[in-house]
């Protein structure tokens, strides 16, 4: 039984009760139309630009009215491997020189992370921000090319693990 609405929860529309049986506000209807058993609470709130307060109150109300069926939670957070970050830093150093390490720490800080807790979904953002620091267009492209291959290797590895 769901006690508290959390960002990584996933719901779908309950078969037990129809939204037509309940008096809903327009924003609540908007949330209902987004329920597909795949999107998390966080994603739906982002799509509809809901405030934190609106998000909690709407989902709580829909839950209370028996319109939501709990599907599950998004898979636990996975962090970027330290060895991969070291590799990225090494490649970045080839383009930026010794200052690369400092810039990398600054970008991680900008993302609210450090070398031990960068989430997988933030990896591309980190690389994109690092690439912006390389002012030479050709070198920037070469760095991106190298990094895209690395990220896709990680994605392929994750996909194989899930098979």
């Amino acid at each position, binding site marked *: 039984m769901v006690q508290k609405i959390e960002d990584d929860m996933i719901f779908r529309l309950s078969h037990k009760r129809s939204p037509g049986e309940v008096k809903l506000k327009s924003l609540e209807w908007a949330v209902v*139309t987004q329920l597909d058993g795949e999107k998390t609470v966080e994603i739906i709130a982002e*799509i509809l630009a809901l405030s934190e307060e609106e998000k909690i109150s709407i989902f709580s109300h829909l839950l209370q009215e028996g319109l939501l069926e709990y599907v599950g939670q998004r898979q636990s957070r996975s962090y970027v491997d330290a060895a991969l970050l070291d590799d990225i830093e090494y490649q970045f150093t080839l383009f930026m020189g010794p200052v690369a390490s400092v810039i990398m720490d600054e970008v991680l800080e900008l993302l609210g992370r450090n070398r031990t807790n960068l989430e997988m*979904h933030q990896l*591309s953002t980190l*690389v*994109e921000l690092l690439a912006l620091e390389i002012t030479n267009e050709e070198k920037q492209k070469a760095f991106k*090319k190298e990094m*895209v*291959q690395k990220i896709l290797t990680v994605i392929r590895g994750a996909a194989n693990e899930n098979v």
Partner: protein
Amino acid sequence: MITNHLSQLLEVPGIEAVLLFTYHRKELFKWHKAEFNDHITQEIAETFIQIFGIEEKTALRTREIAVPYEKGIVIARPFTKFFVIVVGKHKLDVPLVRMILDVAMDDVENDRKFQKLIKHAPTEKFGYINEFNLDEKEIAFVERVQSGHGEMSDGSEN
């Protein structure tokens, strides 16, 4: 030919469609999941022809347009003679798609066969706006832009 350059893009989880069109609606490349059909892809392409066509008459020079929609996100980038559209789910890794586009579209543009394919494609965009698909307000706006009296507005009433 184009598939080789875009193969990395097609590997990104959440990619639903990748389309390349010229500004006079000629399809150069199309890859999409089953839920897309020719009608939908043409409609998406036409929408961006309208946008880039109008933009040509303004001082704006957009490098990329990213528009969220109920099922995900659409990213479009204009080039001199063609444009690329990427449609993805909400979970799409947008920074990764951007980086791949940065690298891959250069390769596409420099591909000799591709250069041959778009050799006679027009660089002009505004002339290919399809007025049949516009409502009265939009037609009036296009006419204003055409006559040089167009104004970019934020949509609010003055």
